[in-house]
């Protein structure tokens, strides 16, 4: 927050990956080094690799081939089995408010890991930026973001690099309604204002299109994203599950 921090060198990169705009921002003394540029390239490359495995918009992704029966789980990338495991845990801890089985075109339920892949992919990409000396990094995947910093950077004091994350006002996206300050961690927001009713409530078996948004911040983007979606579509039971099972996370309802 001090003047010296706001004057730190800063650089940004933006690419369209996984069908969304992804911004990578670096702050600190080392942002212009070749190592930083290489790490950013590796982060984008990691996101593209996740897209090739998990995209439900590409017919040739492993998940789509798995859906069609062209591929077995055993022959998929090991990340697919890992996603299924994470999804199972997420369904359990959210009391059923999170699901990876979504209604398909034929009205049946099909495997759709989209609900956890974005946060997970952004978190994995951010991890590739955590070892740059003197650098703090923030990766923003269409509104869900992760902040990492080199191990030598403190979380408090004059040398801490703090990111002030504005939370978009769901009723007026040109404004922010709240601010979360982070040196390390994640912020995820779920809402349907921008894309209509695209979130599925597995308990009510319906798509949810209510106004407002749910933001969750805490240590991991994978879990902040899962909880934001679960809390947005879920009812009181999801809220109770969050309170008892996610003590490291904070919820903001707008």
């Amino acid at each position, binding site marked *: 927050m001090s003047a010296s921090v706001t*004057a730190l*060198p800063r650089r940004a990169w933006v690419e369209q990956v996984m069908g969304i*705009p992804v911004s990578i921002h670096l702050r600190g003394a080392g942002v212009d080094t070749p190592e930083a540029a290489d790490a950013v390239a590796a982060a984008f490359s990691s996101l593209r690799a996740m897209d090739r495995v998990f995209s439900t918009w590409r017919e040739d992704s492993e998940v789509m081939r798995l859906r069609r029966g062209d591929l077995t789980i055993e022959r998929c990338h090991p990340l697919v089995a890992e996603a299924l495991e994470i999804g199972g845990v997420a369904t359990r801890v959210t009391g059923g408010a999170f699901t990876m089985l979504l209604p398909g075109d034929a009205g049946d339920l099909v495997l759709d890991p989209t609900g956890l892949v974005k946060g997970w992919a952004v978190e994995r990409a951010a991890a590739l930026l955590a070892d740059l000396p003197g650098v703090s990094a923030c990766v*923003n995947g269409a*509104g869900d973001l992760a902040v990492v910093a080199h191990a030598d950077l403190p979380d408090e004091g004059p040398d801490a690099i703090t990111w002030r994350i504005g939370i*978009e006002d769901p009723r007026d996206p040109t404004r922010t309604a709240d601010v979360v300050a982070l040196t390390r961690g994640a912020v*995820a927001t779920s809402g349907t204002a921008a894309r209509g009713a695209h979130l599925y409530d597995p308990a009510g078996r319906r798509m949810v299109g209510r106004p407002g948004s749910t933001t969750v911040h805490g240590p991991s983007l994978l879990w902040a994203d899962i909880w934001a979606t679960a809390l947005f579509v879920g009812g009181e039971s999801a809220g109770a599950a969050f309170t008892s099972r996610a003590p490291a996370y904070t919820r903001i309802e707008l």
Partner: protein
Amino acid sequence: MRRIVLWAMSTLTLLVLLFSYHTSRGASTTVASSIEQLNDSASSTDTGSSGASSTDASGSSGSSSSSPSTTYAGDAVQTQFGPVQVQITVSGGTITKAEVLQVPWGNGRDQEINSRAVPILNSEVVQTQSARIDMVSGASITSNGYLTSLQSAIDQANL
């Protein structure tokens, strides 16, 4: 610093056009070519051959800390809607003020569009700076909404 300013200027002018486009009946192809023209124009100021950049502290543009505020005015660019010119004030690498010097004001329709778009543009850019927001979390930062999002303004200012 110079590069940052040029990016920011091209974004500002782009936003003006996008706001105009939302409320006008213009064809998208001509809007796209206007934007190209705007970006070309912003690049050309890089050579120093055109564009009126003025500074109240000469030689400050290279320093990264404790630099005084500097004002840059972009070229007036002819668009299908009329001339657009944007001026920004940069202090310590951040935009502290964004002003639209010139927008189409020829008829009632222009005035109606721009009296809405210009204050939104100005407050959007300056708000992210004055609230000292580094990034934005929100549900509307999709591909369709990105160009007019707060996150986009922040990205462009730091590219």
